[in-house]
């Protein structure tokens, strides 16, 4: 297991956001976390990467306890989050945004190599290298956010609702890119509301309901599960 949470709990004041979430991410797999609004999906990611402090439970990364460790250390160790709502720098160019992703790398040649790799993966960004981030379309901005995280060569990529607010054809495009990443051997933990698409590309899936894991299993099995179909796939 490259990433694992054990009975993870988070409280926002008196509100219990997570009531004990245990999940496992195997190296090279794409695991998805689906659920309704307010189920605690984003909170789980934030607790893993140290943006919120868990009130209980533990997080393991490569078999080391990383519970409550500061975000910047986790990023340096190989955990990257693409936050909800993209969070790119709108006034900087695409190239500058990408270079910021490799901020912790001192070696200029290594930086150039990664930039080339990322542009091969996202040719659309390559065409717009000198354009300001804020002038990109929603889908392109999302790709930029993912590309920026990939500049860090993360061991595990955490994605928070990459399809949020995108047109259906762009959603399709983003998920194709994620599949491509997976084929390339990346380890991904994907949080999604778009359960249909997420289950289609994932290996394993967890269903989160009011801060607890309600269901889990191989993605293919869950996609055929009656309860999942009823609640999340609109069948």
């Amino acid at each position, binding site marked *: 297991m490259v990433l694992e949470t054990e009975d993870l709990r988070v409280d926002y004041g008196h509100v219990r956001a997570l009531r004990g979430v245990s999940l496992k991410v195997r190296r090279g797999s794409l695991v998805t976390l689906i659920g309704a609004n307010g189920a605690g999906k984003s909170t789980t990611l934030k607790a893993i990467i140290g943006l919120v402090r868990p009130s209980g439970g533990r997080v393991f990364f490569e078999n080391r306890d990383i519970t409550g460790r500061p975000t910047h250390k986790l*990023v340096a160790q190989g955990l990257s989050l693409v936050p909800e709502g993209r969070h*790119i720098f709108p006034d900087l160019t695409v190239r500058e945004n990408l270079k910021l992703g490799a901020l912790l790398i001192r070696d200029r040649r290594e930086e150039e190599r990664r930039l080339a790799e990322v542009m091969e993966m996202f040719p659309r960004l390559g065409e717009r290298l000198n354009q300001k981030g804020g002038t990109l379309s929603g889908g392109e901005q999302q790709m930029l956010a993912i590309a920026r*995280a990939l500049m860090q060569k993360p061991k595990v990529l955490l994605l928070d609702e990459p399809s949020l607010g995108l047109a259906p054809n762009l959603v399709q495009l983003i998920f194709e890119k994620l599949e491509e990443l997976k084929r390339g051997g990346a380890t991904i933990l994907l949080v999604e509301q778009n359960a249909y698409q997420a289950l289609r590309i994932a290996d394993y899936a967890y269903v989160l309901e009011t801060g607890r894991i309600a269901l889990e299993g191989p993605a293919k099995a869950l996609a055929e599960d009656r309860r999942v179909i009823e609640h999340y796939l609109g069948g």
Partner: protein
Amino acid sequence: MINPYYEQILILTVINIILALSLNLIMGYNGLFSIAHHGFMAIGAYGSAVLALSFGAPLWLAALVGMAVAAVIALLIGFPVLRLRGDYLAIATLALGEIVRKLWPVLPEQYFGGAIGLKDIPQFQARIWANVPVSQLDQALSGPQGWMIRLNGPMNLISLVITFVLLLILVGMGLWGISRWLYRLGERTRLGGRPLVIAYWVVLGVGLLVYYRGLLGFAERMFWFDRALSRQAFASDQWALFLLFVAVLFLFTWVVMNYLNSLYGRAVKAIREDEVAAAMLGLNTFRYKLINFTFASMWAGLAGSLFAHYQLSISPEDFNIFKLVDLLLMVVLGGMGSITGSYLGGIIVSWMPEVLRFLAEWRLVVYALTLVVLMIFMPQGIYGYREIRLIPTWLRRRLSRQGGEVA
């Protein structure tokens, strides 16, 4: 010779620019609404004055210690306070500034002077070229080293000219900046940019022609063209003090320019733009905020120390809420996140009270009105998030094209 009244305002202008630029590091570049800056200025002023008065420290050492004390206190206080965000940070820092002001009367009176404050603070001794105090000037001129001092006459004239050229550049920057701003404003409306800019320069030119007598009168009041006095004036300690402060200001500006381009400066700006994204780049956002806060407060301490050793007396009321209003006005009016803006803000806020002196008690009303009008028409201040380029853009582009990479 320069009229001592205007000389005083010039020196205070320099101190104010240092304050504006250092506060801009926190508010403009890091996007934190911290309003304890007058407190750190007071700490620098008191620290340095107490050291010089009670312990007889040399002034350069006192100033350095004043800076250090402000920095250390900023570090200690920033540690809990900078974890707050937005409004909460503003409230906490506001309280902090007030605590500092109320602190001086409580501290041992023999050192800190109680509610009355400190007086007879030693003054910075700065001399131009000739190491001779004004009182001994006539004697020295007739002595064996007299030729050296006589040589200094024209040398001082050169330094005077340099200073005026700098002032002219600053005024020119302001006028040119306003024309650029009008151009953008015109482009957004139906008026069009070019007609508005032409109208602006015409009005300015006509205004100058009509009012040139008034300007001459001002220059006469500002500068005393008196042959008998001018020999002393060039060796005047006050004028030397002004040049010394300008040197400190330019040094500070140079440090800030480098700081802003370093990893620290870039990190600070990234945090302003988007703190979550900055954290995702692997930046320890809290650490950079703390470093920036400490760095900026340290320079506020220096400004306080310059103030104390120039003013020669300080009291807790020199650092009250009105001082804070002045500081905020400088940053917001000049422009957030801009060195040019800090200079403009410092100059405008230092000179406005003098220009508006005939309004007496209405001055603060005009202040407030200026802010309101400005926030409506220029929400980012005169030079918000922009700089005057000393090298014109077309030249810069040509240079960088030859150099290969476009910066």
